């Protein structure tokens, strides 16, 4: 879809991030790691979106065991691409 942006990969230690337009903030996280880390990653995504001033978008994150620095970097790169696509 033209309005969708993707960053990252499904390689080990990486994650695939997809952003799509949405009327609200939605985070769809898929990860094989322990439930405790699920919350941690969810919060990391949520905090990064807030820090970047994003208020409405659909985020799909498929985690392949990525560390925080990777998830954050992939998300920031996705937001920048998304803004470039939508705001020019």
């Amino acid at each position: 879809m033209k309005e969708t942006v993707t960053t990252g990969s499904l390689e080990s230690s990486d994650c695939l991030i997809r952003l799509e337009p949405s009327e609200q903030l939605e985070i769809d996280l898929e990860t094989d790691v322990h439930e405790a880390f699920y919350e941690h990653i969810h919060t990391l995504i949520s905090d990064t979106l807030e820090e970047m001033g994003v208020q409405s978008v659909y985020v799909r994150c498929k985690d392949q065991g990525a560390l925080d620095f990777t998830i954050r970097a992939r998300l920031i790169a996705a937001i920048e691409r998304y803004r470039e696509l939508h705001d020019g």
Partner: protein
Amino acid sequence: MARSYLFVPGNVPRMLQHAEVFEADALIFDLEDAVSLEEKDEARQLVRSFLQTHPPSQPAYVRVNADALARDFSILDGLPIHGVVLPKASIQTLASLREQLDGEEWSVLALVETPSAFLELSDLARDPGVDGLILGGVDLRAALHAHPTESGIELLYARSRLLMAARAYGIEAIDTPYAESDDAGFETDLKRSVALGFDAKCAIHPNQVPPLNAAFTPSQERIREARRIVERHEQTGEVRFSLDGRMVDRPVLEEAKQLLERAKRYKALKKEADDAD
């Protein structure tokens, strides 16, 4: 000063997070050739995020893109890096880099990989901002229409010329990485780097790091010989004497002192003292 510089692709998380353990003396996080054009923005964010949160214990460099310096430098601000590697180094790209550095006192290693760079090599080497020259053998071979040979003859002039410039201006001489996958070829290439006088060599695979560190560390036999030369000089004040039938004069004495300095830097002197105990 390092013996090994390991290139780490900037857009591969698992390689970033494991880079430190391979014991390279220095790491070069690559935003240039190891990253496709479509992934440059992702690599910039990944390298920034990694270095902010996991600064490696060894000196970290970032290889920037000569044609996208402003974008690359936009993510380098405030990072705990030792320096940058400037690809396609030339007087022009060096001037552009200096603008981006904007007073930042990062070390600059100039990657010499074009025929035109060799025509202005003296100017590059004497630039006060440049701390070392790296030979970019793969790109240079392609530009020269040369092919890799076992003897390395196709790069002999470039290696020698780069060494001359580095030595003339007292900066580091770093040899091109061995880009093939065969161990025998790597060993031959490494011996050549050491014999020619390079200070260090780049590695593109972690497996290359241990032999590379070993090769650029003076052997215990050479350390013992250098010690005897320097001790004899210190005891007698002589600068010209015979030791075990070998003629020693000022250049040999200087070479011995330099070897001991290198051994000390790489903690090989302690090992020698331990052996003697």
